[in-house]
């Protein structure tokens, strides 16, 4: 590079070749690497979609074709028409929407109290929420399972939580442990803290009650934060696999994610149908994300916690 620069330098008297062309080359290399990384990232998705359109015979072809010979929409029909798919869709929707709604309500209420109200034990409760952010949730699945099983008076349990199945295999059991998260409370608290206090003070002078202030003034202002919380809650419940897997033993309570796993591990699994199902399951989250992208990335950025 250096000797090229020397020979070329006289042509441009003020700027050396290197100074002039290096930024361009750097930019080209940068773009090249970015495009390579983007292709590497998106390739598994492209294979997923490509395989979902193949005939059974084509899925066994080796090496596989990247572009399928024809578009076999029947795979999507087969995936949707599976005997349990409708039921699984309902279960996934109830779980995801229930979890989303309860997170939005409970985290907003708690976040507002921690941001704006004065009460005894506030610092302690806030410290507890922050501390619980660090509890590794996945490793708690065993006791959570046992607790859900032992909820008193549910599923034939007595008042001590013995004798029945508790909330196992129920929507309540699925939603309850995900109905509020330390992350959601923390995020809403951060958001409410940043709203100027003057809004509340003027309403209070007008004689408004605490709940009215929250409901009529603060909540409408918190729409962007609520959108982030909603999208993230929906995404995490819709995509959740481990909790529904452990909680449900009955086939009619399985979610779509469990359904996909069963479809894939079944004795007569067909890659094309499995991939059609995977595409269908992935689409809603991507569509929701693309609509709410700006909010979600901003929210993840400002709260600094993964989505």
């Amino acid at each position, binding site marked *: 590079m250096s000797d090229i620069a020397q020979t070329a330098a006289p042509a441009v008297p003020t700027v050396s070749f290197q100074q002039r062309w290096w930024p361009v080359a750097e930019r080209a290399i940068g773009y090249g690497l970015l495009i390579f990384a983007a292709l590497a990232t998106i390739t598994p998705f492209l294979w997923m979609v490509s395989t979902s359109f193949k005939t059974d015979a084509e899925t066994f072809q080796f090496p596989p074709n990247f572009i399928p010979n024809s578009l076999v929409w029947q795979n999507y029909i087969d995936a949707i028409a599976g005997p349990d798919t409708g039921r699984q869709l309902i279960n996934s929707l109830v779980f995801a929407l229930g979890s989303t709604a309860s997170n939005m309500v409970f985290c907003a209420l708690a976040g507002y109290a921690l941001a704006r109200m004065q009460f005894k034990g506030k610092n302690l409760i806030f410290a507890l929420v922050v501390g619980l952010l660090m509890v590794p949730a996945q490793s708690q699945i065993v006791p959570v399972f046992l607790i859900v099983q032992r909820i008193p008076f549910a599923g034939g349990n007595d008042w001590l939580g013995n004798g029945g199945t508790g909330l196992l295999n129920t929507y309540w059991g699925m939603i309850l442990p995900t109905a509020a998260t330390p992350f959601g409370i923390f995020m809403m608290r951060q958001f409410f803290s940043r709203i100027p206090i003057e809004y509340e003070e003027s309403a209070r002078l007008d004689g408004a009650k605490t709940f009215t202030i929250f409901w009529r003034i603060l909540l409408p202002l918190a729409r962007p934060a609520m959108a982030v919380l909603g999208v993230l809650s929906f995404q995490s419940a819709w995509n959740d696999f481990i909790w529904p897997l452990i909680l449900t033993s009955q086939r009619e309570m399985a979610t779509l994610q469990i359904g996909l*796993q069963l479809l894939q591990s079944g004795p007569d699994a067909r890659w094309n149908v499995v991939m059609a199902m995977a595409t269908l*399951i*992935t689409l809603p989250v991507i569509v929701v994300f693309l609509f709410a992208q700006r909010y979600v990335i901003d929210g993840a950025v400002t709260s600094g916690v993964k989505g």
Partner: protein
Amino acid sequence: MALQSSTALARRPQSFTQNWSAYAFLTPALIILFLSLLLPAAATVVMSLTDISFLRPTNFVWFDNYIKLVSDSRFRQAVGNTAYYTVGVTLPTMALGLLAAVALNGKLRGRIVFRTIFYLPVLTSLIAAAVVWMYVYEPYSGPINGTLTQLGLPPQPWLQSPNLAMTSLIVMAIWRDFGTAMIIYLAGLQDIPKDIYEAARLDGAKTKDIFFRITVPMLSNVTFYLMIILIVQTFQVFGAIYVMTNGGPLGSTETIVFQMYQTAFGYTEFGYAAAMSTVLFLAILLFSIIGTKLMRRGES
């Protein structure tokens, strides 16, 4: 990073008036947190001192479970596998996330498209990702071996060989996680004052020097924060292993949480599983404390 900003918020000097409705606002969320996190954490510790199981009446066995863990060679293998997986995922994820963030922080054309593409794997459900990667790794009809064969290279048993399976899982995890790292680094980059870069450029600093002398040191807090998040998350890996390898081949992908799951729901030895969970929890706590200490020292 997020925690600092919360404490930095100035509290207005106000007379204290107890607001009773605050408890009503907090109660539902606190009940849920109690049932889903606090009570389970406490229960785990208590259960780990018992032999609770569906198989027999429960007895207190005190530290027997922990003593058993120390000499359990399968558990030791799981600890080793988990450590290998954690290091293997965390470091490349952070490096790739940082590079992507730095590249996409400026006014680069098409940066939104790149960002979205890099973030797509984060949005994909674990099962969808696992199923797709099982196809990608499929030895007899999958695209990776297809490409290798076309290039005249030998195909590999990606998930079927004890030597390769863990690495294959690591590659998939990096693919799924580096979008998260990118987003958090992008947030960190926003906080670096622009004039530092301008001054450095006026002094004729090279891009490489700017990256290593300004960007990387200025992001050290974000890096620590991200490292802790990623370690805590990868330490608990379970779903991908459950679906893709079921711990095999030859236990080469058995991790702590996977073994915990098997011990609890396969053998119904809840007490022993709780002991594993407690060890995992203590390890994560230790990491968080060390990380926070290091971060504090770095600041002062």
